[in-house]
């Protein structure tokens, strides 16, 4: 194996032993890194070394490692999900860095996402927003024919774009106000755009916004930092749609 391109970096990582513990940044040298490694693989290498030295490995959440699960939210050098545009940390490769770099790695620092340990945060606030109405109520029975409900092609595409949201929480972490409106907007939009979501769209908008407010997220100030960092390129037009759906439901529904 040709190791000539391998290099060394120093990473400064947030270490926090538990939710209520005091955390701090700790520097680690990581040697002999391949430029083809992903950022998470680099942390794996570091963790293996830590384990060999009988030290606590760094807790970091990851699952699919192909950019579709939304687990691996990290702030790398002050950039949410790292320097690559519209990408997750697992899709970030070490070739973006060079020998001798000092890389700062932090968790989402959001009031509604308490830190569990080190880089792992509890994003269940987003789950509770979904539970408030991010679904359609369908009675059980035989699966309906796929073509029985016509859907406009543009709407289908747009709903799919909204549904691409992986709930990683980057929008909240990047928001100057810690607002979850891009997430909630996408989740309201993906259903509001389709006939299957139509019957419940008013109560959905009212309930999901109420749940969002309950979780102590900030208010959107329309600065669009969220759109800039979203790994799935979710557009802020989803927030506009949520505002629209919410106000229409507030004015014209019976609730």
């Amino acid at each position: 194996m040709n190791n000539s391109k391998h290099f060394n970096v120093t990473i400064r990582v947030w270490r926090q032993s538990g939710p209520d513990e005091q955390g701090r940044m700790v520097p680690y040298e990581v040697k002999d890194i391949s430029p083809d490694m992903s950022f998470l693989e680099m942390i794996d290498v570091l963790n293996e070394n830590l384990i060999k030295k009988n030290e606590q490995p760094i807790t970091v959440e990851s699952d699919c490692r192909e950019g579709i699960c939304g687990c691996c939210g990290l702030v790398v050098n002050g950039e949410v999900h790292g320097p690559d545009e519209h990408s997750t940390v697992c899709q970030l490769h070490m070739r973006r860095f060079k020998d001798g770099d000092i890389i700062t790695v932090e968790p989402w620092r959001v009031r509604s996402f308490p830190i569990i340990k080190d880089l792992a945060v509890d994003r269940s606030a987003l789950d509770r927003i979904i539970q408030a109405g991010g679904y359609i109520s369908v009675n059980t029975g035989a699966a309906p024919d796929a073509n029985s409900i016509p859907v406009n092609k543009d709407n289908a595409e747009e709903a799919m774009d909204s549904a691409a949201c992986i709930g990683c929480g980057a929008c909240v972490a990047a928001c100057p106000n810690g607002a979850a409106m891009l997430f909630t907007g996408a989740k309201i939009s993906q259903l509001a755009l389709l006939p299957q979501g139509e019957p419940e769209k008013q109560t959905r908008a009212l309930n999901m916004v109420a749940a969002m407010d309950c979780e102590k997220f900030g208010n959107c100030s329309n600065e669009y930092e969220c759109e800039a960092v979203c790994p799935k390129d979710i557009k802020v037009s989803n927030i506009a749609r949520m505002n629209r759906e919410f106000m229409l439901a507030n004015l014209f529904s019976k609730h």
Partner: protein
Amino acid sequence: MNITFIRRLISASIGRKVLMAVSGLALGLFMLVHLAENLLLFKGEMAYNDWVDFLLSNPLTPFFEVGLLGIFIIHIVMGVWVRVEDFINAPRGYEARKWQGGRTIGSATQLYTAAAILAYLTYHMLTFRFVNHDMGFYQMVTSAFRNNFFVAIYVGGALAVVLHLSHGMQSAFQTLGVSHPKYTPFIKLGGWLVALTMMGFAFISVYYLFGLDLGAAAVEMTVVQ
């Protein structure tokens, strides 16, 4: 009587934002009308004073003033409320943080320009509204515009409004859910144009500060002679 929908305007985050957006747009509209009225200064003392007299003699004017004050209060209260919540909930503690290009100078300074505008407005009321108007409105305004200190503050106020609206206009439309791939670019452009139009206030004051009206009057005098 079910008042949930009214309560929600205040209790829900989006409700508060909508109130701020609607009142903000109304204030922007008022500013445009105000600027048009100020332009009457260029038509001369008679035209300007006649217009002011018309406004003052109109029985609806006091109601309009109270309404305007109400809109201001809604905008300020909702703005402060939203910002206090944002301050509490803002992510903090990042060792390093880089903005990714969504933020603008206008959006990042929204609260500061708001404070500057409020401070200016108080000064504006104290110097133009709650004073003795015996000398006539045209004289009052133009003599103020010949004062360096006053014009400096006046131009500062106008700049704060420009910066505030550079973000505020498009933000209001987004909050009201007006978003469309065809029209949003025009709304953003229009927002900037409305914001820049507010430089008109500064232009008028500077025009008088440098005595450009006197130059025009002198030319007229020569022609008459």
